[in-house]
């Protein structure tokens, strides 16, 4: 049982949980994730460690309510309540190389998880460019955090209500125009977005790391459900990743595999929503 010490809602679908787990907070490194069980009956779901506070002994998760489990958590996980299980940190920590100029791109789900990497690069002395994307101005979160560590921050909104009108890929193009000497790109977000970023950097021959989110069960290398094709070879997302070279990842296959349980997920959500209506 791990206590939720704080909660913050960024929008009607995105929320933050700060969870007590001193050992995990001590061990966590940028790029790693945890597997969470909301209650004893719940599915095991992987979530990136968006931040950690070693002094307080907490980790931060930023979650987007997309289906049954993440919505149920949105409803139930208030400060003071507990999660039945949190295991991690899982995955190979991101390699924070000695680069002079780094771009960290976070789109949708990826805004929070890209933050610890950006901070690490900055702390290592890199010139850090942040690119974050939201639907509109009201959904922007963590701008202050990003500002604190970014030498240049590009905010993109779909409707242009703040920053650049357009998607993070537009932001990335602008960044390359402004800074022709970018050494490396880190892109985290939905697979389409990571794919598009990788396509922008491919002709420029700029290394682009992405963080993949295949469907997982155990997160320990035991089931093989998280397998992805990278450079033509089979790799396991949980033990070889989740970070991979974006130019080598077969994103189309990943996107098909993410739809593996689509019908079941719909059914689970419908059932749950109906039950909830009855109770309300």
């Amino acid at each position, binding site marked *: 049982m791990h206590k939720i010490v704080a909660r913050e809602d960024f929008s009607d679908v995105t929320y933050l949980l700060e969870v007590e787990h001193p050992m995990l907070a001590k*061990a966590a490194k940028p790029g790693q994730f945890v597997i969470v069980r909301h209650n004893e009956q719940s599915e*095991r779901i992987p979530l990136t460690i968006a931040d950690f506070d070693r002094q307080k002994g907490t980790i931060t998760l930023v979650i987007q309510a997309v289906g049954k489990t993440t919505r149920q958590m949105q409803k139930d996980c208030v400060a003071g309540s507990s999660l039945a299980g949190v295991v991690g940190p899982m995955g190979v920590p991101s390699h924070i190389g000695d680069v002079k100029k780094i771009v960290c791109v976070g789109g949708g789900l990826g805004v929070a998880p890209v933050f610890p990497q950006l901070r690490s690069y900055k702390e290592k002395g890199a010139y850090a460019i942040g690119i974050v994307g939201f639907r509109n101005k009201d959904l922007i979160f963590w701008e202050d955090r990003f500002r604190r560590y970014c030498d240049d921050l590009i905010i993109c909104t779909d409707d242009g209500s703040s920053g650049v009108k357009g998607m993070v890929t537009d932001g990335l193009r602008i960044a390359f125009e402004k800074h022709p000497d970018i050494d490396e790109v880190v892109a985290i977000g939905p697979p389409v977005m990571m794919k598009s970023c990788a396509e922008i950097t491919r002709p420029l021959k700029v290394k682009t790391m992405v963080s993949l989110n295949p469907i997982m*069960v155990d997160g*320990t*290398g*035991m089931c*093989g459900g998280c397998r992805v094709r990278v450079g033509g070879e089979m790799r396991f997302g949980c033990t070889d990743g989740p970070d991979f070279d974006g130019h080598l990842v077969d994103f189309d296959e990943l996107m098909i595999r993410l739809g593996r349980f689509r019908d079941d997920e719909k059914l689970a959500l419908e059932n749950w929503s109906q039950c909830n209506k009855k109770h309300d």
Partner: protein
Amino acid sequence: MMKNWLWKTGRSAIKSMTKVKKTIQTIPQKRTPMQEQDPIARVNNFDEVTFGYNLEDAVNESSRCLDCKKPLCISGCPISINIPGFIRQIYEGNFKGAYDILSEASISPAICGRVCRQEDQCEIGCTVGKKLEPVAIGHLERWVGDMAIEKGWSNSPGIKPRGFKVGVIGSGPSGLACAADMAKAGCDVTIYEALHLPGGVLRYGIPEFRLPDMLIDAEINKLKKMGVKICCDTLVGRLFTIEQMLDEMGFNTVFIATGAGYPKFMGIPGEFLNGVLSANEFLTRCNLMNAGEFPVADTPLRLGKKVVVIGAGNTAMDATRVALRLGSEKVYCLYRRSRTESPARSEEIRHAEEEGVCFCWLTSPVEIIGDEKGSVCTIRCTMMKLGELDGSGRSRPVPISDSEYELEVDTVIYAIGTNANPIIGQTCGVKLNKWGYIETDETLQTSIPGVFAGGDIVTGAATVILAMAAGRKAASGMKRYLGIQP
């Protein structure tokens, strides 16, 4: 000579002396059968397939043991159980005595009696088996084990705390066996398990109808009563390293028993299609996450109506039989060699056949074909013939040209073996062999002093009993390392 014997075995011997000396002619000629659920009924439930002996069966079967002077059965048992000894106790009606003898060697007779390959181990050497069917050693062992659980017997008399701290990584049979021995030796033992429930393959792999969870729980509870702490949801190597366990966390010695559960695929086209999964994933979803009850349980499964399982080991048998129980209409099992070479226990194959699994021996998949949505629809196979002997002494299967054919399926389950789990290797300096398994010396100590390893992570995928034996062997090594055993 007889006097000497009487003196040695005391009162109980006198009792049995009153009975006639058994010979191969006087014992019951037929092995006492074990009752099983009817195949038609059992494919609709997850209840145990075999019912186990009742008292009468057990005593009757125990009367078939000749109590040999040179019991060849014992040399077949990886943990050298005193087989004639425990069977004699059953015969004499001293069932607790039988349990006492079993529990000297085995941490769980109820588990071993069910999943051990007794027909190739203890029973193969049995003297009775030379003329008749061998004594049903495994069935008797299971019967005693079940009785012990029912009556709450356990043998951990007067543990004297010694102040040593022992860490065990992995809660499969190897880790549990080591923990039991170290706790009995008075050590303060903590088991760390990455999953949210303990038991390793016993829990997430072997299904309920072969090994009820209740038996694993009983084992775990026994350990807890001895003071063993079990911390689940703890991924060692990433949450903390083995080096940290030794330096910061104060462990005097550590046992690595992380198993070999890293599933293999074949590398044929189509393995990334939706509907292709490893037996580990399939069984974990069902056994650990209850996906068979989706949507009541949260974890989905999406099992198809026509399923093909590749491989013919125990894992493959379990996968085919779980698929049938969850409502698949047609379940094929593909194996590139023949039934004789199959690594599964013959009993498991028989059970699968009775339940309606369709075996395609001497068949190997060459390609999995998907539909426009990226889901499996067909598997293309080739017929094989057995060629020359290979390095393992088995005939190498070779494809027969122009023998390819297609099966319409919607789920493909891989059960062709596993590799070493990589996490410990990635995160500590312990020496590995070229396949990623941990190297040890003869006491099972690794290249790091005080760190021992055993079970599948050392040997590669093996058996429950060998994993338990390794756990006990490592415990001996650890006790010597700590100076509490000469």
